[in-house]
């Protein structure tokens, strides 16, 4: 019995040992779990040039889709022939607000990461050029942030895009004035950074889709954007915009170079080679122009001017350009007449961000409003704008174009008349340029758009978009505070800070 027991004990010991050994083998196997859960499809670090291209492309193509869906519909470039689509009647469902909010804030994360990653690298030997990326980042940040605040009003800014770095999931909203003040500082910083002209290495030049690494052009883009924002805020004396414009254009022009030709325009020029494809490249013709026709206002204005851009933009019906009315009553839709040319789907110029012609029109306005001198320069700026808006499309200025009725500049006209002329011209340079024509209409009331019988929202052009519904559920406390802070309900009649029209 004793012997038997001893033998059994031995076997038990072996068994215990083998189970323990198995346990050790198993638990030590957990050690490779860290490597196992390391994502082989992504990278934990980045560099500025790796983010830049994709983010500019993402914002610009997302804006393209909104131009076709919202801006051009509200602003009577085209009008839908589908009775159920009611944007031309200013019926913009709350769900429309999500897309821009989502894209713009998401891309701002990338844009800000361009700055932070460049800032980390700029201290390394031979990498001072990263300061140029910091400048680019600031310009893009100002561009996208201004789109957000101009669309919605008060929006998260100081606490925005800090989800990862600070676990800040419910950012507070800032008022629009403070956002504009901060953007001015951002653009000053960009101007300073880019003034150093720290050239990018040749290998990185190709990764700049806007200016091919030309830092002077970037700087001019930044300052031109600065001018756009100053002018937008200029209706508010507390913005100090008039003085800043004067400093920029009259006092210190050498320190604030602006775009000086069409070649310096900021345009993401789409190609037909992936991935630099226009957002419309995969649209069927029908999705692009099948259920919409160009509007009477748009076609008639260009017809009256004999504007050659029609040949690039619109199809003809029986050899004529014909528009259809916008804002028609429900059930009164008309068949489309002239529509977008399908070639526009792949048109490089639909990647416009900010053009030289717009700069000229801004200077014309700044002149007629007395922010800059001499007053006589207004005509030059205006005519430069008109001319370059057409030549930018590869077209020649028709003979006598600048003296045609409705175009010709007359210094004797009233400010309102001059403004209408400038902004109406500018409206056409905003063909496929995010929401700029709508922003400018809200600010100036121009161009004067006919209001159809079916128009809703008390026949008021939407003064802003409502906040996305998701924000109400995901960031309720700050949302409520923001709505209260704007002095009106969260609707499309409450005006944003700069809107004193």
């Amino acid at each position, binding site marked *: 019995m004793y012997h*038997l027991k001893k033998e*059994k004990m031995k076997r038990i010991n072996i*068994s215990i040992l083998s189970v323990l050994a*198995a346990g050790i083998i*198993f638990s030590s*196997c*957990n050690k*490779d*779990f*860290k*490597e*196992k*859960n*390391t*994502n*082989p*499809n*992504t*990278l*934990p*670090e*980045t560099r500025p040039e*790796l*983010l830049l291209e*994709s*983010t500019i492309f*993402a914002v610009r193509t997302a804006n393209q889709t909104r131009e076709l869906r919202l801006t051009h519909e509200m602003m009577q470039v085209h009008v839908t022939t589908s*009775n*159920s689509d009611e944007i031309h009647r200013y019926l913009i*469902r*709350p769900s429309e607000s999500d897309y821009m*909010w*989502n894209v713009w*804030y*998401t891309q701002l*994360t*990338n844009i*800000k*990461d361009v700055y932070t990653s460049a800032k980390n690298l700029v201290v390394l030997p031979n990498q001072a050029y990263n300061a140029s990326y910091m400048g680019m980042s600031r310009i893009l940040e100002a561009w996208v942030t201004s789109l957000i605040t101009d669309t919605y009003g008060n*929006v*998260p800014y100081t606490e*925005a*895009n800090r*989800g*990862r770095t600070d676990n*800040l999931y*419910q950012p507070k909203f800032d008022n629009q004035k403070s956002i504009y003040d901060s953007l001015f500082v951002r653009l000053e910083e960009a101007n300073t950074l880019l003034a150093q002209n720290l050239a990018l290495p040749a290998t990185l030049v190709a990764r700049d889709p806007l200016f091919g690494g030309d830092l002077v052009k970037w700087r001019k883009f930044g300052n031109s954007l600065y001018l756009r924002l100053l002018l937008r805020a200029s209706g508010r004396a507390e913005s100090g915009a008039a003085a800043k414009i004067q400093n920029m254009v009259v006092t210190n022009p050498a320190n604030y170079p602006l775009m000086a030709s069409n070649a310096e325009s900021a345009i993401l020029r789409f190609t037909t*080679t*992936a*991935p630099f494809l226009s957002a419309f490249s995969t649209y*069927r013709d029908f999705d692009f122009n099948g259920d919409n026709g160009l509007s009477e206002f748009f076609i008639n204005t260009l017809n009256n001017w004999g504007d050659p851009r029609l040949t690039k933009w619109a199809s003809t019906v029986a050899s004529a350009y014909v528009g259809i009315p916008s804002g028609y*009553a*429900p*059930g009164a839709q008309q068949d489309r007449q002239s529509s977008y040319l399908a070639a526009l789907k792949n048109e490089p110029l639909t990647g416009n961000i900010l053009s030289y012609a717009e700069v000229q029109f801004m200077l014309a306005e700044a002149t007629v409003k007395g922010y800059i001198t001499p007053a006589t320069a207004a005509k030059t700026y205006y005519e430069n704008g008109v001319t370059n808006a057409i030549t930018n499309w590869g077209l020649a200025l028709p003979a006598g174009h600048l003296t045609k009725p409705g175009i010709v500049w007359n210094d004797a006209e009233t400010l309102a008349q001059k403004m209408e002329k400038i902004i109406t011209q500018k409206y056409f340079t905003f063909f496929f340029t995010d929401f700029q024509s709508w922003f400018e209409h809200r600010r100036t009331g121009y161009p004067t758009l006919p209001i159809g019988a079916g128009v809703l929202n008390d026949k008021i052009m939407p003064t802003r978009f409502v906040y996305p519904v*998701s*924000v109400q*559920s*995901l*960031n*309720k406390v700050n949302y409520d505070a923001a709505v209260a802070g704007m002095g009106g309900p969260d609707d499309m009649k409450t005006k944003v800070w700069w809107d004193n029209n």
Partner: protein
Amino acid sequence: MTLLSITAKKLLAAKNWLLACLFLLFTVSVTAQEKTVSGVVKNPEDGSPITNATIQVKGTRGGALTNEKGTYTIKVADNQTLVFSAIGFITQEIRVGNKTTIDIELVNNNKELEGVVVTALGIKRDEKALGYSLSKVKGEDITEAMSNNWTNALTGKVAGLNLVKSGGGPAGSNKIILRGENNLNGNSEALIVVDGVIISSSSGQQTGTGSTSYLQSDSPVDFGTSLNDINPEDIESVSVLKGPGASALYGARGANGAIIITTKSGSSRQKGLGITYNLNASIDRVNRWMDYQNEYGQGTSGQDTWYSYNASEDGPSTRSTSSAWGPRFAGQSYYQYDPVTRDKSTTRLPWVGYENNRKDFFETGKTLTNSVTIDGGNNNTSIRLSLTNVNNTWIIPNTGYKRNTVALSVTHKLSSKLQLAAKVNYTNKNSDNLPSTGYNNQSIMYFIRGLTPNVNLDWIKPLWNPGQENISQNQPFSSLLDNPYVIAYTMLNGSNRNGLIGNVSATYNFTKDFSIAIKTALDYSSEARTQQRPFDTNKYPEGMFRSQNIFTQEINTDFLIRYSRDIGKKFNVGISGGGSQMRNKYIRDELRADQLNLPGYYNLANSKNPLVALPYRGNYAVNSFYGLAQVSYDKFLFFDATARQDWASTLATPAFGTNPGSLDNTGFFYSSLNLSAVLSEKIKLPTAISFLKVRGSLAGVGSGGIIPYQTAFTYSPTLFPGGLTNPAAIANPNLRSLLTQSAELGLDIRFLKNRLGLDVAVYRNNTKKQILSIPIDRASGFSAAVGNAGLVRNKGIEIQLNGTVLKSAKGFNWDIFATFAANSNEVVSLIEGVDVYVMSVGPANRGSIQAVPGGRMGDLYGIGYNRAPDGQIIYNAQGLPTRTTEIKYIGNTNPDWKGSFGSEFKFKNFRLNALMDGQFGGVAYSLTHAVLMEEGKLKKTLPGRYNGIVGDGVQYDAVNDKYIPNTVLATNIQAYYDAHFNRDNIEANTFSTDFIKLREVRLDYTFSKKLVSKLKLQKATLGVYGRDLFVISNWPAYDPEFGTLENGTINAGFEIAQFPSTRSMGLSLTVGF
């Protein structure tokens, strides 16, 4: 004996199962007065002796083997029990008593004993010992009325099982959900286990083509999964473990229940080989059509007074629209399409409708299955080999697949103690073309909905314009619709998949009661897919060619030590402990040439641009230890406890740079308790009650999820070379396991000598701390943060009824069975500060399935009618119905209950089976309905044409601030129906998905023994069957039972251009040699 009871006490007190298991080694054989017993062991089928059968004295290590005559002798005491076992036969126990000769016939193993079921980890258990509900489906029940996907055969046979079907073509993938959805992230699918190989997260998972179903550049294709590829002829049985209580031993992935498939093994035969040949031929035809109108032809609003193919003296061209608001077919003539000149006819032709133009496009699907099975063996070895060939063509021209399967199962007894087994299942499935699904050019159903009644399908039949082969497609009508024959014959989606599911196991029996089993299981598949599109198609004007190579592999190695023994006369204690190691790998490489240089050539060399490469790799692993203890008392009370510790790699934080990473959250523990009491054994019940069992189960199952890489922040690549972007979700280094808890009570009661049986289960499951991408305000810079949140509760009842209505001496037999399952769930909580969680969205964000605290899973929200306080639709001044601008609750997409009723008649050699099933209480949105209403294609759009219509509802009288009946005549009839049924109006296009289907009917004839032996056969059966023969439903599109393929998953709730459903009819012949 004292030692034994000490051991028992120790065992009962032991907390560490593994140690307890080891203590049992102390047990010593009991000696008593011995005598010699002898006898013969025989096979009852033919009376042949069974050689090498093992005879063991129960509870000891003593034993003997039979010789070639089947005889044995053994020394044993009166109070002991002999255990007879042989490979391929069911083990039997006989108490010795005063006998000195014990002859025995062992029952062949392939006829499973009643009541034995396969449970988690493949452990066979007596059904009455289970504390949870388990449904068993026999192999024959699956092959009875064969469908392209054998899982369809589970419908109506298992209470609480819900199939969400892709309806995506011949591959016909299904998502299997048991006891309702519980995961907010949409991953509520049951675990699928084939012979111990878990396939649901490897080759059994859906892998999409990266596209959603509504107007995208690409369309989803149902390429099927390896679950579809399992040869139904090889299935021995399917056990459905519905709740976590049953599947807790599967660990993390068993939280949603499990489907355990056991394939057939060989049997030991004494007389050579058994060969079975099986032929199955079936046809599929569309079983239900929509209610199309055939009274009015092509035209839009205002085009109802003339038709003209291109402009003519009758008026401008009206040929391009997909709408049918045009003139009535009233015997008049117009200039129409001339198929010879392919232009406007020179004379006016009769204006007629082609009523069958849609139906004529569809063909009769045909499936031919040939399978040969060879099985045989001797007492030490058994082998089964089956070869199956399937040839399918589907209802859409030029679609279908071929499949070849080889299944081999080998069991070999190396000695009386060591047994080796291997199962290998190899499948090759090849398809030249599987149909694109969804609402998009490239999908057939997009064209079918666009077809107008005045178009003769023959006109569309030429693929190309003359002399423009592969360059310019023939589109006599709308250029917005790709020619369906171009889609079917040139827009191909090919797939070639090789799959291997197999395992090798070794079992060593130290004694009859103490064994160790080691098993390695492999699930491997590699699939090559190609997609091609010719030039001049709407989405790819310059053609397209893409290739996708997908490799999946999961290896699971485990061991299980089992010990059981009787303690005293009444207790039996069993204890098992084991561990496993799982490694899962997924690789997908996609190359895209989205513009081609030369028309008609489909390969990567023809790419106009540099190829776009989209690689993805995924890896994860789980290590586990688990234990199971079973105590039974007097064959009456059964108690089980399971415990499991897992470590999941998906919860590990990787090391980057100076960050050391962490393994802190990888481990998690959970357990389950099950109790079963067979009251009829102990309590005197009325004689009508022949059996009564009550059962209960409490279980928790943790999970680390199957999505890796959620614990570290990284940048994702973009389409730009080397380009990077921030990810959508913020990673969470502190991610923890989720927990599913379940409580279940059940009752199994049988009456009248088991002629009537009723099984009832009630359950409550909570799934909490779910691993979610929690939506956050995008102003934070991200769309979501990964974290643990949410609680979803499912409650339900499942009833299963079996009965024998008639059993006559003359051989007439009538059995019935019925199931009922109702499940209700509640989203108890989401995430702090979030009151809506969007789970999925409809076409272009029209409508959404939202989880809202207090609501249910599957709640459908969307825009609907503006309604007056009394519920009437409010019309505007033009007499058109108005819609809300804000979304509202529309209904719930999950049915409240499902039921089935089956019946089987047997008379002599005939057998007739029928099964009906239905679901009630759910709704879904139908895009097909919406679009056909917008376009005036359904009979419902006939009222009001020409004369206008006054909609049923009210107008708002602003002066008196009240609602007055609508009296405005809407004259623009297209605008009227559009205002009602435009696809934006979710409410108007949402319908009940209630249905009753005649699911299966089968008539079998088994040839008589006499005839069979004359033909020198062993058996022969001939059967005819039908599947999905009739459907009763108000669903406006084709099939109320559907899912929609979206980017690699199947979503419910939104029907998006579904294919017609089919009725199958077939013939099967089984011959055994």
